[in-house]
């Protein structure tokens, strides 16, 4: 028998998948290990190439300086604010739009989805200057608003949700409609509960995108009270000189929350196949 992709492996027997997954996982953990080791390396070893893989001694001074001498906590707070607004707004607006584009037949639907897709086909590098103009007219430059507004919705979110809704079986909704529910009720009572994995996916990518966004805030925000964490970290990196120990410690501080969030959010990906298998 071939490897059973849909099996309900009895809990007693350890799965053969570990043999595959454990080494793969190790390979993917590499950058985090490297980043973490770098963050506790003494400054002189960070400045060398190739660096020693294991630092000769542990040095937490990067973290100490980061929290005592820079505004890292303020920046972290700003980033949390940006990411939270982005996620809330994305989950609401993109799931609505995704559903509309997937299931409702209306005028301008195809053109609409195509135009949304088209917006991401022009490389952002060249859109920075006009976007800056637009935002300065909206009086958003130099405030946290400049970092938040672009993340209220996205082509990615709309398109992702649309494709997810397309793959849901129509029958459930149809029976709802026959029972007299209107579109909104069908959406909120039948479709959304089914879309939890999709919503988790959207939340993960929105968090990641808004949390790590750098190129745009770099242009839009000067005021260091409105700095996001990535922006603050970028300021440790000069054209000619880089504050490596601060940067490495900052990278760890910036990355850990994302990894923890993912660890929690991935629980939404409950294997339904296994569940139904157990039921049957």
């Amino acid at each position, binding site marked *: *028998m*071939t490897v059973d*992709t*849909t099996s309900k492996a009895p809990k007693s027997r350890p*799965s053969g*998948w570990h043999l595959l997954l454990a080494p*793969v996982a190790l*390979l*993917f953990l590499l*950058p985090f290990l*490297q*980043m973490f080791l770098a963050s506790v390396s003494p400054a002189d070893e960070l400045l060398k190439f190739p*660096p020693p893989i294991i630092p000769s001694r542990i040095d937490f001074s990067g973290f100490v300086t980061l929290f005592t001498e820079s505004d890292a906590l303020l920046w972290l707070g700003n980033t949390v604010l940006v990411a939270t607004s982005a996620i809330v707004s994305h989950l609401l607006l993109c799931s609505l*739009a995704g559903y*509309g584009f997937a*299931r*409702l*037949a*209306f*005028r301008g*639907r195809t053109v609409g989805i195509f*135009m*949304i*897709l088209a*917006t991401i*086909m*022009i*490389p952002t*590098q*060249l*859109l920075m200057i*006009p976007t800056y103009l*637009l935002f300065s007219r909206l009086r958003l430059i130099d405030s946290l608003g400049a970092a938040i507004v672009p993340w209220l*919705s996205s082509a*990615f979110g*709309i*398109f*992702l949700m649309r*494709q*997810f809704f397309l*793959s849901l079986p129509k029958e459930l909704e149809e029976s709802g409609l026959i029972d007299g529910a*209107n579109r*909104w*009720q069908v959406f*909120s009572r039948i479709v959304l509960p089914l879309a*939890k*994995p999709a919503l988790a*996916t959207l939340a993960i990518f929105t968090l990641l995108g808004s949390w790590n966004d750098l190129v745009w805030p770099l242009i839009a925000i000067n005021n260091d009270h409105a700095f996001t964490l990535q922006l603050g970290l970028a300021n440790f990196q000069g054209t000619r000189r880089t504050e490596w120990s601060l940067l490495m410690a900052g*990278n760890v501080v910036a990355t850990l929350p994302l990894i923890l969030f993912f*660890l929690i959010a*991935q629980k*939404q*990906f409950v*294997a*339904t*196949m*296994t*569940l*139904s298998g157990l039921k*049957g």
Partner: protein
Amino acid sequence: MTTTELSPAATAPSGADQPDRSGRRHDRWRAALTGWLFAGPATLIVLGLSIFPAGWAFVLSLEKWNGFSPPEFVGGKNYSRLITDAEFADAVLHTIIYTAMFVPMSVLAGLFLAVALNRRIRFIGIYRTAIFVPFVASAAATGILSTYLFSPQYGLVNNVLQRLGLPAQGWLEDPAQAMVVIAIMSLWGQAAFTTVIYLAALQDVPGELIEAARVDGAGSWQTFWRVIWPQLRPVTVFVTIWQTIGAIQLFDLVYTTTRGGPLNATRTIVYFLWDKAFRSLDFGYGSAAAYVLFAITLLTTIGVVVYSRRKNMEAF
């Protein structure tokens, strides 16, 4: 969730899907209203924030502008210059090579990893999170790691090769290999993207369908291709389109690993236009390249969509 602003939609009966004999016009109008009440807000934000910049970039592509002085209108000159520019042709070629390597690999890797991670075994949360880690790392961090691994003189990979008695390679400093290294590193960095999406999509496959196939005596391989794979098509179209658009716009990793070198072997279209705009201070020319890129991407996307429609995949 805020429902108040949506109540008009809620009161509208679902006209869209049901054919009606009388008042078709009225129904259509109502369907449009319902549709746009759902889709409108998000669409408005996305389009509102990009139409002006895109239009401005287009106007710029018809001008000569160094970023400081007043721009000068030159019509189609930037575009005609692009056609004869051998550097641009090279950039297009490098982009195509990268896209052809990266997109299929990333879709297949995502599918494979998602299937592997879609089970209830111990440590599964840790395995999933591990895959996610490189995706969190910035392009700068991935770039630094790439140079640690693939430096010909000092890199870990050559070190291992030599221990195994194999010849050391030029990797990032060999014009023939540099793009392959970049493709591998992007695949490694972005595998989580396709994996997470497929993982979520797998949750939508109704268990009943799988059970039914089982009862019919299908093996797991057959069950996957006959039952699960068709359900994943809309999402496959999504990741293919998305990864293609992303691959065509490759920039960050090139910037952090090779800066377009060695000997321009990894200059992609976006690197080319960035270089023209911000290093040569020729924003008009850079914008023209951006619009050519836009056209290429649009045509590719339409190609994918038409293909999926023809195949009746109901994905677009």
